[in-house]
């Protein structure tokens, strides 16, 4: 593992479900909870909307970590969306690991609209884990449009 510049902060792309995790993030803000400013949130209608391609593209275009956050299983606004999400990403997490991507870089969490504190804690923890790994160099680049 590379030694990391202490000032370096990771860039985390967070796909947050509109009905739960996005509201959870909002609650963390309203509650003035502090957490590292490392996450860029992309609001999605349901965690089931998150295509594996989004995750891999995020890494390719410069994310050091990717978070998919949705409602707790059983609480999906569309009843079953996140059950499919769960299967899809259980599988993809393992496939990414198999390709050599460190597991900490891709995480899925269930965060409800009431769990502002959990949102802050997840981002803090993920930031620390990725900070220890350093900038992501795997799957990076390949396109000429952002370099």
């Amino acid at each position, binding site marked *: 593992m590379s030694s990391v510049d202490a000032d370096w902060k990771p860039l985390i792309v967070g796909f947050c479900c509109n009905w739960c995790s996005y509201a959870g993030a909002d609650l963390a803000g309203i509650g003035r909870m502090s957490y590292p400013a490392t996450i860029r949130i992309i609001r999605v209608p349901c965690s089931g909307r998150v295509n*594996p*391609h989004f995750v*891999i*593209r995020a890494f*390719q275009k410069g994310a050091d970590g990717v978070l998919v956050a949705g409602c707790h*299983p*059983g609480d999906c606004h569309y009843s*079953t969306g996140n*059950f*499919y999400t*769960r*299967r*899809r*990403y*259980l*599988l*993809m997490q*393992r*496939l*990414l*690991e*198999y*390709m*050599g*991507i*460190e597991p900490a870089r891709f*995480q*899925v*969490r*269930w965060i409800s609209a009431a769990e502002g504190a959990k949102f802050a804690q997840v981002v803090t923890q993920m930031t620390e884990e990725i900070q220890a790994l350093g900038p992501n160099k*795997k*799957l*990076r*680049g*390949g*396109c*000429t*449009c952002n370099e």
Partner: protein
Amino acid sequence: MQRMTDNMRKRAGELMAEGKADRFLGWEKGSFWWQSPPVEIKEASQTERLIWDLFCTANLAKYLQQMQSLEGKTGVFVKGCDARGINRLVRDGAIDRDKVYLVGIPCPGMIDPDKVRELVGDGQVTIAPLEDGLSLQGPLGERKVTLDEVALDKCLLCRHPEPLGCDEVLEGKAREPFTGDIYEEVRELEELGSDERYDYWAEELSRCIRCYACRNVCPACNCVKCVFDMDQPNWLDGATNLANNQVYQLIRFMHVAGRCIDCGECERACPMGIPLRKLAAKVDKDVNELFGPFEAGLDPEEKLPLGTFDPNDPDSFE
């Protein structure tokens, strides 16, 4: 072999005469000893072109999908893995089962030409059946071997050499189905650390030229409009380099997850020798571990693991 060939020609002729099939899909002898490519028999007078030997490796499922727009019924000869490929495509609505007549061939396993070359040299090779194996004659002389010594790896691991779901099955002897651990190679890779695994795949995938042969041949890749062919939105940049190749493989294997039948066609079609079955097998292993035992292509009405869920699925996401 010769008996099976005769039988195929005869049955194809009969079925076409009876009107059960308007054309037939099988294999014919190619220009090289190691090739028996697919052939379409358009009328009964052409059935002599059909052959059965140990190089009828090409999976006919995708060829059949391409022929779906033709009028009438298509007869197809199928090995175990062809039948699974066709069941798969029927499951996805990509093949109309009523437009197909499947004639099964119990499969002994197919030959890996590279294994033969290693034994008797690279050049003109003749292969003759013996009582208990094969005689190979090549530039380096003659060798007597068992079929398993030169069979394709995927055949050594084949669990269904008997074709399933056919309209009829020709008489013959299939190899013994494999019952051991089909994921050994995957486990070996899983033992490595993240960086080592990354390097392994980076080296392999840096050779990919994104010819998409692996996709085109795959009976689990049947989208009429593939994401990799779209330019709006542009899901993948055109340049052939490591990152784009990695994105391609990760996404392709997510798309075939729970649908791959382990026919090994992707690896066979790959001109760059990339060990794609190690990716296919990884995904298959995880589908089985996470969501329970499942083999794709056994039943044309199967429920696909990623198209369904169980509220009690494992959950490591908290």
